[in-house]
């Protein structure tokens, strides 16, 4: 019995020791550690999908960052803490004071800290501070493709969300799904093996591969920047596409914004002018009407027109751009000299009903379906609301409002055999276990192959016999059309302000690229032939070299 009593006494004393220690730890001096996570359920944030160009070069990646938070009720010396943090972060003492509200349990001090900043603050060993692991978007090419990519901001719940461009439209694919970890943990934050351990892995966002070529984008953006400076234009856009497939190889508009510091820019900068802004295209619209008339067999390529003077339509006088008239000219010459009166004649031959029908056939008044957020469809007023003057001015691209991407795709159909292609930027979406390729899609047929070949020849002739002698790359046949559209302001046209443009393709026989250049309000000259056209030919030279296109 004595041995039993000794054993019992031993166990009794052991229990007293354990209970006393527990009392001490939980009641008298509770253990306080910044790394303790008392939550048994924790969200695991997925990594946002990456974005690559057509050569698998990265355009948007993720980088590891830290969110610095404070638990104000655990802070002992607030002024000292604020001073020390501000010496590293330079946020501003008053900002920190307002953020660290003593009435709150948990506040965010600063998000997006890098490893160096985190280590400096961690080494201060300040009570009441902690870090959360986060990811932030990283753009190795900075704002090279600002309007294409968009940016990643926050939603109302403070979670990452893409806005504009690819980040906006494909936000669900890029976001992925969060995971959950349910774990019983002890006071030191260590998992209790025999307790609950459940984990649902996060599904990281899908990666996107674009049709954009980083090198072409670089060429085009640099040329546009130089062009805006050289010609004193307010803003500009350049789009490069493969006319056969609808792949967008490059798209840039200036002014744009810094994708890392998007919050410093107003919303006006986020709008992608290439897909959102409406403008009157001017003379680059003429080949569309010409092709329609040829397709409908209302005119033939060897027909002639008597350009003997201005034309009067419903009391409005329509003149050529230089008020010069050459008498009997060929249909091709109408395009070469960009004759407005000649185009009114072509439009009249085509007929009002047909002209309206072809506007719809070319895709105007509806979205092209390009996979960027923020596209505008433009507006074609209903047919009963059209007057004779509307039909007349439409033939030379005035009195009609379209987007640059609509213009580009309609023009593509002229040079690719008559196929109106859907423009697209994302060619492949990949995840851990699947890959989805996006194929070129034809919306509809606009003109026949025969008409396409005829209009291509006319456009080559337009470049060769144009009013201005451009510095064309020798040994190559290039087709295209200039445009100079007056800008409508409060019901009338301001003759001093124009939108100068040029649309062109090369090599003419089998076009590898189609480029649309738009400059708004160039100061050196209002004419597209003296501003947008030279810029196009500079780009064309670089693209010919880049694509290794042999001389014809």
């Amino acid at each position, binding site marked *: 019995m004595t041995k039993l009593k000794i054993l019992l006494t031993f166990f009794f004393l052991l229990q007293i020791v354990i209970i006393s220690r527990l009392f001490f730890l939980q009641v008298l001096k509770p253990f306080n550690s910044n790394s303790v996570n008392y939550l048994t359920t924790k969200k695991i944030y997925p990594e946002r999908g990456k974005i690559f160009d057509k050569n698998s070069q990265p355009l948007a990646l993720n*980088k590891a960052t830290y969110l610095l938070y404070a638990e104000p009720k655990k802070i002992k010396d607030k002024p000292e803490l604020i001073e020390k943090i501000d010496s590293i972060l330079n946020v501003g003492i008053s900002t920190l004071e307002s953020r660290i509200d003593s009435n709150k349990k948990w506040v965010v001090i600063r998000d997006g800290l890098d*490893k160096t900043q985190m280590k400096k603050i961690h080494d201060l060993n300040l009570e009441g501070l902690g870090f959360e692991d986060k*990811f932030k978007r990283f753009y190795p090419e900075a704002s090279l493709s600002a309007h294409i990519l968009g940016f990643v901001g926050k939603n109302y719940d403070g979670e990452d969300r893409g806005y504009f461009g690819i980040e906006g439209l494909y936000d669900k694919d890029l976001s992925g799904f969060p995971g959950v970890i349910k774990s019983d943990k002890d006071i030191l934050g260590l998992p209790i*093996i025999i307790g609950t351990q459940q984990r649902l892995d996060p599904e990281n966002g899908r990666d996107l591969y674009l049709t954009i070529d980083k090198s072409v984008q670089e060429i085009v953006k640099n040329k546009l920047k130089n062009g805006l400076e050289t010609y004193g234009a307010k803003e500009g856009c350049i789009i490069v596409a493969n006319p056969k497939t609808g792949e967008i190889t490059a798209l840039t508009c200036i002014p744009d914004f810094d994708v890392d510091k998007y919050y410093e820019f107003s919303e006006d900068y986020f709008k992608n002018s290439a897909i959102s802004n409406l403008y009157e295209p001017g003379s680059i619209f003429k080949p569309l009407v010409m092709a329609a008339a040829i397709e409908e067999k209302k005119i033939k390529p060897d027909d002639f027109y008597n350009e003997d003077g201005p034309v009067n339509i419903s009391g409005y006088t329509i003149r050529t751009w230089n008020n010069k008239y050459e008498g009997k000219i060929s249909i091709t010459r109408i395009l070469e000299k960009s004759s407005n009166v000649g185009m009114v004649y072509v439009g009249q031959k085509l007929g009002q009903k047909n002209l309206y029908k072809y506007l719809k056939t070319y895709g105007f008044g509806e979205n092209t379906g390009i996979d960027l957020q923020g596209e505008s469809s433009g507006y074609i007023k209903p047919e009963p609301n059209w007057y004779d003057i509307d039909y007349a001015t439409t033939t030379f691209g005035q009195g009609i409002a379209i987007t640059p991407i609509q213009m580009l795709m309609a023009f593509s159909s002229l040079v690719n055999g008559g196929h109106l292609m859907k423009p697209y930027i994302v060619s492949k979406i990949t995840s851990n276990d699947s890959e989805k390729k996006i194929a070129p899609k034809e919306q509809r047929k606009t003109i026949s192959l025969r008409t396409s070949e005829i209009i291509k020849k006319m456009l080559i002739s337009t470049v060769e016999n144009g009013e201005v002698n451009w510095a064309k*790359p*020798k040994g190559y046949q290039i087709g295209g059309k200039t445009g100079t559209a007056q800008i409508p302001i409060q019901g009338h046209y301001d003759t001093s302000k124009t939108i100068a443009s040029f649309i062109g393709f090369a090599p003419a026989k089998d076009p590898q690229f189609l480029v649309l250049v738009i400059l708004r309000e160039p100061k050196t000259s209002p004419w597209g032939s003296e501003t947008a056209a030279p810029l196009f030919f500079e780009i064309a*030279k670089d693209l010919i*070299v880049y694509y290794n296109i042999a001389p014809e």
Partner: protein
Amino acid sequence: MKILFKYIFWIFLILLLAVNLGLFVNGMNLSNQIYRFEKESERLHRENLSLENKAYEIDSLKYASSIAPSLNFTNSAQPVYLENLKYALKR
């Protein structure tokens, strides 16, 4: 016989206790290891991301254009054969 059984019983109990304690301590060690490996793999992943980003940054056009002046890349490096086809066609 009775005494033998008694001894066996107590030895068995003590063994059970020892095994129990051993399992408990092992469990704690395992949790420590799991915690360590989890933290380590998270750290490695973040370091991996950082290195990957550095590699992509060095490979970027933005970096190339920033060091181009020091590497003496000038406009004269652009090809001229588009203007003088005699080079390409060996005329």
